[in-house]
């Protein structure tokens, strides 16, 4: 039986190896054919033109913009909510709020996307102008979607800080708020940063909800009321009909996304280890 358990333990290693193998084997040759430089920094994505051009720079920039927007909106609210839940919330209220955060995490991304299309897109269109399918809309929606991740990780980081820190600050005459913000939060810094990084990973990887509200135009723009396309939406939009080099270029897009995620994961586990130590 030990052998069976051992083999089961190997499956996750096997899965990672297979995923790397199939993505890289199908994606790297395309990068070679297009030219790594033209692929990563090319400004034009026009796979159906002749000659076709496969530049994913607009999408890399798109993913970064949308993620940055999500961080600007989601991180402050998320951390402050975590502070509220860990340090300000009456016990009775906590019993309602905790399942609510779990529910926020459990709502499927299509439902978020649908909500975005029906509520956020008209809201942005009416209040800020443009078509509503924009960086701003996607940022708001993603900001909401990463809230539970940030709240969950930050809350447990805040709770892990020894009570003596807080009591010490109180004893020195600080108010409850000051004690929490100037002694507990700095002590929980690396745990909270880990939560933010996990949230960034979620935001970069989110596909369906973003696709429904971001407009998906392949262009470089920094106007937050205009639409653009992210790495994830580029894959999901065109994979259905892509063939040959186009298809391989999309897989190469996934390779770029995968490498982004690996870097983020690495940062996350480094920080988590440090916050444990």
């Amino acid at each position, binding site marked *: 039986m030990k052998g069976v358990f051992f083999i089961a333990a190997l499956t996750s290693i096997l899965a990672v190896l297979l995923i790397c193998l199939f993505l890289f084997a199908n994606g790297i040759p395309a990068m070679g054919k297009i030219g790594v430089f033209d692929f990563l920094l090319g400004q034009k994505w026009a796979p159906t033109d002749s000659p076709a051009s496969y530049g994913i720079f607009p999408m890399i920039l798109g993913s970064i913009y949308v993620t940055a927007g999500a961080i600007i909106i989601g991180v402050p609210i998320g951390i402050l909510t975590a502070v509220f839940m860990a340090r300000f919330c009456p016990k009775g209220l906590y019993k309602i709020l905790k399942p609510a955060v779990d529910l926020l995490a459990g709502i499927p991304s299509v439902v978020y996307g*649908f909500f975005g299309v029906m509520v956020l897109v008209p809201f942005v269109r009416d209040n800020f102008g443009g078509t509503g399918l924009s960086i701003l809309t996607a940022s708001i929606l993603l900001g909401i979607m990463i809230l539970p991740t940030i709240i969950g990780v930050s809350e447990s980081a805040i709770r892990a800080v020894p009570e003596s820190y807080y009591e010490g600050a109180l004893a020195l005459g600080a108010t409850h708020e000051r004690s929490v913000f100037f002694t507990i939060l700095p002590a929980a810094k690396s745990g909270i940063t880990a939560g933010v990084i996990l949230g960034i990973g979620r935001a970069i*990887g989110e596909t369906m909800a973003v696709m429904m509200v971001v407009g998906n135009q392949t262009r470089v723009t920094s106007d937050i009321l205009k639409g653009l396309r992210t790495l994830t939406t580029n894959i999901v939009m065109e994979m259905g009909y892509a063939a040959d080099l186009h298809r391989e270029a999309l897989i190469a897009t996934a390779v770029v996304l995968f490498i982004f995620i690996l870097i983020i994961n690495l940062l996350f586990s480094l920080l988590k280890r440090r916050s444990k130590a």
Partner: protein
Amino acid sequence: MKKIWNAFKTRFKTYKKRPLSLILFLAVTLSAIATFSILIYLIAYILVMGIPNLSWDIFAWEYNSDNNSLMPALINTITMTVLSLVIAAPLGIFSAIYLVEYAKRGNKLVGIVRVTAETLSGIPSIVYGLFGMLFFVTALKWQLSLISGAFTLAIMILPLIMRTTEEALKSVPDSYREGSFGLGAGRLRTVFRIVLPAAVPGILAGVILAIGRIVGETAALIYTAGTVAKIPDLMSSGRTLAVHMFVLSNEGLHTDKAYATAVVLLVIVILINALSAFVAKKISKGTRV
């Protein structure tokens, strides 16, 4: 009531002297209110817009472009959930058993397995979808099918089941194992008779979380299980409820049906969450004894 009012008054007095504390207090409270009003608004919006659109039509046995029935998708969701769990649950639980019960301290493999599991849990679902398409659909020639989708999702939920099982096994007190060994039971018997039963609620909580992810998944399924709105055999394509929801709202032709489908999806997710909260409560009660 008067007590609360007095507490509030003394608090307000300190705030008057220390405006920064007031600002911090307001920031924290307003953020929490914002977070929870978003959730309440989202749920209320879907329910209010969707419930009037619920009709027997969308629960018809056969899908056609007229009724947009979600019944085939609902049944496919159940099939998909069962299949993925049948694949992933034994693998996840067994590997957790190896890591916790068998691996020696400082075993290099344990570290590698942990890192790979962490990597897996960070991979976005669209990358899983692409991998499933390249491996199960194309390389293994399983075509767009429920089985390709189920294997893809199984890899996706594997780290989740592994991690929760690991934690559940670790929380079983060592005295249980020592008692069992002391009575002459072997390691295997100890694991199956003593440790696993004690860890069941924790494992169950992980499985329920995994069900939630399967039910809500779209991006990983579009290019592995496909979007055909039928109840297929395992080797053919079929859409799950979340995929159905996506197709409906992406077409934009049947917004009323999309609202109704969103209600059904949301209700299922709320039920799953309630179930997992219930099991989690059981766990915390169990360990306190």
